[in-house]
Every structure is written in structure tokens, then in C-alpha cells.
């Protein structure tokens, strides 16, 4: 199951950030009580907060863990997404009251929690988390590291970007997408593709951003260049050169007439269902998602590495990630840490969770398991998981979502709409967006 689908994630950002702010207001009232005063007991019942299939997957690890760690019981609770962001925020704001011991947190919330509630999450470096730093896909460690350089979570799920394409369509035009080195190579053969596939587009994007921003593609192109809306220090890079290059690639693709408009909440899925899209630049969760949702297109899709944005540039990016953290307020932080370490640093655990809940692991040593090499009939016998494992091993650059992601996303989306509707210059609209972001957030432009 794709428990981290793009729509879910978008929806989650709204509701979760609400919680973040609501909790922030509470924190202001309660600041006198200060940080949480937990304890380091290594026995007792550890409560784990997660959601949906991920919670299900975590539960699968519990029996083995309890057997190996007598004295510790684990209770995995499915809080639900986005409800979990609300509950974590309120809990952190209340100085840890009512919070679970172990918390499942997405990459778009972790920086906000660390920023707004310093001391709310336990310092895992104190328990020796740093020993595991090189076991995870490159680019994830900075995400879990606080300003003090200590780790406050361990990576669990990582979603490397892939390039899914309709082999039948490209075959008709005599094009082999595995030979694309850059996106320019795709743009160069656009006319040939169009002639051979009338009525079929390469990408589908919600051009008017109604009802929600559709920025995944541009964000991915930025991430391929190691860039994002913010740099690792939290300064604004929305108006930077890599950002402009990303939006320019989309504009040039659109100029070929091969970017279809996907209006409304179901626009993209409707286009896919009717076979009108030939490329899906999507992360690892999509491997199962496409197969489940568009089953009748079995055998037509293939996966390859995403092309680079600049010649010789990177061809791997980590789109997003989720993590397990320990609440600083927990009276049994050591027991909680033991469970986190057991679940996330052993290939056997993460692979059983991948099988049970579809959570693509960040732990690179897990990819040696034969299941990654297994061929998939939907993808014409290709081992798509192997491709994603390779991409995750290559690793990406760290992405800093900060606590102001929602604002940045909206402004970037406005810029993209201007390019689509008015043919605006990508660099100019992004520079304006960066200026507005600075005005709204008080952050400086890098």
C-alpha cells in the first residue's frame, strides 16, 4: 500500500501544521514548565505512535523484539494520518504529557518539531545512534540531525525518485528512455513521440493548482540538483539557479505541447486511467501504487533512473522520508530506543515491515535480500525494487522542509501557475516568490 501517496502527504501538511501552530500557542502559555523531564528506564511498556499500514508493519516486529528483550512490552497504536500530527503537537506543547514513547514522524514535520519545541524529542546520539549513521541511504542523516549535530530520530522509510514510462508508446516512436542522460534528451525527441502517439502526453500536471498545488515534479527536479526551497541552514533558495532550471525544464516540456492539464483532485488519475500519460516521474511507493490502481496497463510500464537536470548531473534523489523518534518526556527512553534500534537497523526487521506495510526501507544493508531482485510481471519482468534499491544506495542530497514548507509550496505553486497560464519567465517569478517568502517568514535569502 502506498501509505505516503502524494495526495495524502499534501493533505497531511495542512492538518498537521494546524496542530503544530495550535500546539505552539499552547507552548507559549506553558513555557514555564520548560522541557520534558523523562527518564531512562530500560523496561516497561513502550507505546509506539504510527499510522495505517506502517503501524501494521511495526506490529509485526513486536513478537520477536519482546522475545529478545524480556522486560519490555511494546504497544503499537494506529493514531491515523493526519491525526497523528495534531496529537504529537499538542503532546509536545504540553511538555510531553500524553505523548507516546516512540513517534513516527515525516520529513515535512520533523524540522518543524525540532524548531518549535526544542528539547521535545530525545537526543538519540546519547544512546549511540551515531554508530548507525552510515547504514542509511545517503542524504537522510542531516534530516534527523538537530542544530547541535545530534540525532533526534532514525530514518525508516525512504522514497527514491524513479522514472516510470510506457514502453509501448516509446517503442512506437522508436525511442528508448533508458538512453536519456538529461531531461533535454526527452525534450529533443518530443516531436517524434507526438507524431507516433497522437493524443498522448508525457506528463499530467494540475496547471491551475486547483484545489491543491501540484509541485512534485518541479520539487523532484530541484532535489535531483541537491536543491530545494530552503538550504540546510533554513535560508531561502526558492529563487536560486537550480530552482529556475527545474521550472524551466517543465516550461520547455510544456512548450512541446506534451504536458496535459490534470484539473481537480482526480485529474491525474483520470488521465492515467484512460492511458493518456506516458511518463510518471514518481518515487518508490509508486511501484505498488501504479500496479494496484492501473492494473489493466500491466506489461506496458517500465522503470528507469530519472534523467539528470544538467549534463553529468545527479540521477538519484530522495523525495521524502519518515522516521522514528523518541519523546524526551518518556520515562523509559532507553527501552524506547531499544525498540527503534531493533526495528530500523536490522535488515530482517525492515524487510518484514516492507513486505507487510509497503514501507520502502532507508536501511541500505536491507537491499541484499533476494526479494529486491524478484521480477515483476506488471513491469514486464523488470526488477523494479532492485532499481529503487540501487537509487537509494546512490543516495540523494538532504532536503530541509523547515517549518515554513506550506508557505514555500504555495508561493512556488503560484510561480508555476504563472509560467503555465501566462508564459512567465521561470527565473523572474521564482525570484519574486523568494522575496515574498522572505517577507512572510522573516528568513533570509541565501
Amino acid at each position, binding site marked *: 500500500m502506498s501509505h505516503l501517496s502524494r495526495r495524502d502527504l499534501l493533505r497531511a501538511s495542512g492538518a498537521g501544521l*494546524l496542530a*503544530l*501552530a495550535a500546539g*505552539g500557542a499552547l507552548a507559549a502559555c506553558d513555557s514555564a514548565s520548560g522541557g520534558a523531564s523523562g527518564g531512562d528506564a530500560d523496561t516497561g511498556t513502550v507505546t509506539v505512535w504510527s499510522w495505517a499500514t506502517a503501524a501494521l508493519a511495526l506490529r509485526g516486529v513486536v513478537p520477536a523484539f519482546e522475545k529478545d528483550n524480556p522486560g519490555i512490552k511494546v504497544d503499537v497504536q494506529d493514531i491515523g494520518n493526519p491525526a497523528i500530527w495534531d496529537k504529537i503537537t499538542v503532546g509536545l506543547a504540553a511538555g510531553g504529557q500524553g505523548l507516546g514513547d516512540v513517534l513516527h514522524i515525516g520529513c515535512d514535520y520533523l524540522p518543524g518539531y525540532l524548531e*518549535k519545541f526544542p528539547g521535545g524529542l530525545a537526543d538519540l546520539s546519547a544512546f549511540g545512534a551515531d554508530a548507525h549513521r552510515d547504514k542509511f541511504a545517503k542524504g537522510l542523516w542531516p534530516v534527523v540531525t538537530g542544530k547541535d549535530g545530534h540525532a533526534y530520530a532514525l530514518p525508516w522509510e525512504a522514497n527514491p525518485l524513479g522514472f516510470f514510462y510506457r514502453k509501448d508508446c516509446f517503442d512506437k516512436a522508436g525511442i528508448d528512455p533508458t538512453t536519456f542522460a538529461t531531461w533535454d534528451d526527452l525534450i529533443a525527441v518530443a516531436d517524434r513521440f507526438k507524431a507516433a502517439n497522437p493524443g498522448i502526453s508525457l506528463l499530467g500536471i494540475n496547471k491551475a493548482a*486547483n484545489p491543491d498545488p501540484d509541485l512534485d515534479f518541479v520539487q523532484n527536479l530541484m532535489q535531483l540538483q541537491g536543491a530545494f526551497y530552503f538550504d540546510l541552514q533554513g535560508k531561502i533558495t526558492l529563487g536560486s539557479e537550480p530552482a529556475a532550471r527545474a521550472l524551466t525544464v517543465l516550461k520547455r516540456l510544456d512548450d512541446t505541447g506534451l504536458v496535459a492539464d490534470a484539473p481537480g483532485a482526480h485529474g491525474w488519475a483520470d488521465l492515467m486511467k484512460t492511458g493518456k500519460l506516458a511518463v510518471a516521474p514518481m518515487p518508490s511507493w509508486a511501484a505498488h501504487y501504479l500496479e494496484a490502481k492501473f492494473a489493466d496497463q500491466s506489461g506496458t510500464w517500465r522503470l528507469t533512473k530519472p534523467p539528470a537536470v544538467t549534463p553529468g548531473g545527479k540521477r538519484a534523489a530522495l523525495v521524502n522520508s519518515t522516521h522514528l523518534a523518541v519523546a524526551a518526556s518518556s520515562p523509559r527512553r532507553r527501552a524506547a530506543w531499544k525498540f527503534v534500534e531493533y526495528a530500523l537497523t536490522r535488515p530482517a526487521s525492515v524487510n518484514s515491515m516492507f513486505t507487510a506495510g509497503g514501507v520502502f526501507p532507508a536501511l541500505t544493508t536491507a537491499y541484499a535480500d533476494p526479494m529486491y531482485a524478484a521480477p515483476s510481471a506488471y513491469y514486464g519482468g523488470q526488477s523494479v525494487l532492485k532499481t529503487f534499491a540501487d537509487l537509494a544506495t546512490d543516495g540523494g542530497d538532504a532536503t530541509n522542509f523547515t517549518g515554513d514548507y*506550506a508557505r514555500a509550496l504555495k508561493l512556488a505553486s*503560484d510561480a508555476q501557475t504563472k509560467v503555465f497560464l*501566462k508564459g512567465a519567465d521561470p527565473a523572474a517569478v521564482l525570484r519574486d516568490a523568494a522575496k515574498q517568502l522572505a517577507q*512572510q517568514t522573516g528568513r533570509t535569502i541565501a
Partner: protein
Amino acid sequence: MTAVTTPVNTPAAPPGTPPAKARTRARRGPRWRRTALPYLLLAPALVTFGVFKAYPIVDSLLLSFTTGNGSAGHADGLANYRRLLDDPLFWTALRNTGEMLVVQVPLMLALALLMAVAINSALVRWRTVWRLGIFMPAVTGLVATGVMFSFLLRTEDGAVNRLLEAVGLPAVDWLGQPFWARMSVVLVLSWHYTGYNAVIYLAGLQSIPRELYEAAMVDGAGAVRRFTAITVPALRPLLLFTVVLSTIGTLQLFDEPYVLTGGGPDNATLTVSMYLYQNGFRYFDFGYASAIAYALTLLVSVLGAVQMRLMGERDR
């Protein structure tokens, strides 16, 4: 009510009554009860008003002088208001709201007046059905309206575009183009509230004495003349009422763009209220959102006062 709780006149103390002290003590209970009862009955309304209206109104004013949130929140004087003046999105929202106001309010009220006159005509049968028909949109839920119109206005296969094509007009990208998105909001807004205003006018029309029209007809006045010389002047208080109410309603416009366009494309249908909502509940910048709310309040009061003055003057 008063007849029961307040005695009409207090009887004079009969001679030989016990000392005054005992008397007052004896009456204190009922009097306390008498004065407390109204307050007790008002209490639910007052408490609810206090908690859900007065407190947020005062608190949001205080909030509008703070910046940041979480433990970083602090008092910051007029910083939010200064930021508002320099915020291009706020001005965009204000301009959008103004443009929709200028087009929508006169259009809707003129339409409502015509509808009311038509239904009031002696020639029309089944008036109840018509009245029901025009009032129905006013009671239609927000989400139902949004879903219905997003289907009707679809570019590829929406009913509106089908209709346009049937009469030889080109299809319109209703929700994808800035200008047409604004027109879509105007359309939905008018659909929603025209009937409501028409019913108000209808009530006014029915209170105009028939003799006035008969006298005018005897004097040889035509239908148009009767409309401009009798109907419109007689309805003036109601016209003022609906103009002020519609203006305030449109200034606070939120529902229609929220369900239809999400404020887009490229902020073409972003209204002040939507921008307020985004800042408050998407970015959790409650201080700034509160400042926007007070700016809007100021605008509404000023515009309302100006309209009352301009249109109400002749009454004095």
C-alpha cells in the same frame, strides 16, 4: 412576563405589623429571585456570546499585535499592520474582492428586483412554486454547491460548455483562466443569493398599496414609469438594506472561491477572507491573520457607513 414577576403595586404595610427588619428578611428571598431570574434566563446566551464571540474578538485584536508562534511568539506592536501594507498578496486579494463586488452586487440586485416584480405580477400562476424555485439556492449547502458547479463548469464535458457549444459559442476554461475563474465565482455567488434578495423585494412589493398603481394608471403612466416612479422609491429602504448586506457579504467572500477555485489560478480569485484563512489555518500565522481580520473589519465599517449616508440621506 413582567406582569407575573413584578407586583403591580406594593401594598402598604397594615397597622400592627412585625418590626421592619423581619419584614425585609422575609421579602429578600423572593426579590433576589425576582432580579436573578432574567439574568439566569439570559445566562446561556451571554456565556455563549462571551466565550464564542467576545473573547475571540478581543483576543484576536491582541493577537494582531504579536508575531511568531509557539514559544517564539512575542508582542510586536504594529509590525503586522506594516507588513500588511507591503504585502502584494493582500493587495491582490483586495483588488479581486473589489472587482467581484463591483460586478456582482449590482448585477445580482437588479436581477433579484426583476424576478420579484415578475413573480408579483398578477399574470403569473403557481407563485408558490416560483417563489420556492428562486429561494431554493439560498438554502443549498456550501459543499453541494461547490461540487455541483465544479461539474457544471468542467472544460471538457461540463453542462455549461456543452450549452455554449450548442449555440455555436466556444468552450470556456471556466476554472483554469484567471478572468473566467473570477466570473465563475460571480456566477455561483449570484446563483446562491439572488433568490434570497428577490424574496425580500417581493415582501416589499406586496406592501405597496395597490391604489398608487391604479391612480398612476388613471393618470396614464406606463409600466416602466410606474416601476421607476412608484416601485423603486417605495422599495428604497429595502434596496439600501440589501445593498449594504450584499456589500458586506461580498467583502467577506470566502465559501464560493474556497469550494470552486481554491483562490486560484495564480490568486485570481483570492479574497481577503481566503487570504486570512490561509495565513491562519494553513501557515498558522495567527497574529498576521488577525491583523488581516481587523483591516477587513475597518473596510467593511467604512464602506457600510458611506453607503448608508449616500442612499439613506433623502429619508432625513
